[in-house]
């Protein structure tokens, strides 16, 4: 994955969170709908934020097998 993709996904998740939050404060959507959005978008945000910072700095490897 490229950094730009990670950045796009991260911002989309962040936007979804903020939009749901604003809509909930304004009373456009019920609280549980906003929570559902958070539950889906927050993990995506966390992971892709970190991926945007750092991804594919090494190449794939077989697992640690304890030598």
């Amino acid at each position, binding site marked *: 994955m490229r950094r730009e993709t990670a950045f796009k996904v991260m911002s989309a998740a962040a936007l979804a969170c903020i939009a749901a939050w604003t809509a909930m404060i304004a009373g456009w959507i019920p609280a549980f709908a906003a929570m559902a959005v*958070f539950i889906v978008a927050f*993990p995506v945000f*966390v*992971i892709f934020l970190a991926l945007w*910072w750092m*991804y594919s700095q090494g*190449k794939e490897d*077989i697992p*640690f*097998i304890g030598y």
Partner: protein
Amino acid sequence: MIGYLVSATFTGLLMLGIHRKVIARIQKRPGPPIWQEILHTLKFSFKSTWVPATASRTLFIAVVLIGIGIWCAALFVVTEGGSVLILFGIYMLHKIVEHGYGLSSGSPYGKFGGVRSVISATSEIPLFVTIAAIYLFTHSLIISDIVAYQAVHGPLLLSVPPAAVAMYLVLLSKMPYGPFSIVESKELVSGYKTEHFGVWRAGLEVCNGLKTYVLLYAAVLIFIGQFPIWAMLALMLALLVSLSFVCALSPMLSPYDSVTVQTLATAFMIVYIIALVVMA
């Protein structure tokens, strides 16, 4: 709400740091600084990351997302006063996330961690009896009803102490370095976490932070009651320190022994509940 989610994560991580510090001090070690776990999370999110060549890619990544997602849901259930059953369901399903971590990479160490986590599947069974005992008193499992009940009748901790003990056992089995944390035993390298490094590990740490916060908050809420946030935090801290003492002073049980101890505790609780029902 977003602010609460983020601050809960960091508070949970800080509490894990305090847990480590207290254990270290009891064992006469200097121990890491209390913000070590927060630093860990940040550090891991800057480390180089890829998916191991042997891993089941989709599952490898998906469990990280599911892990954070279910504990977000648990946080909302607790703060919005939903059903306590949902919360306990999420406690149990955290096991599945652990299995996913362990099995998805193809590494033998992860696999051992995953199998250990199946073996420790009893650690949540005392929860069932806790729920039943609470229900006998409150006639409702909605958290807001339980809180309302306690506002009238006093804390459940005093009415059903054995249920509180069972809950304490569950908390203990979820804390790192405890007598029941057989999935984190040192001979397993890092157990189910072995192959989740870099960003994936940071995600796992976020999940752990949220988990610690939710577990402690829920325990205080269900057995003592609702207080202003500073008092809640103080009570959670007190609970955490008591857990750290137990963790610091007790050896880790062997995998099957930890299961037997928890099963016996459950059996004792079942007898207690039958006695309660017969008396009523």
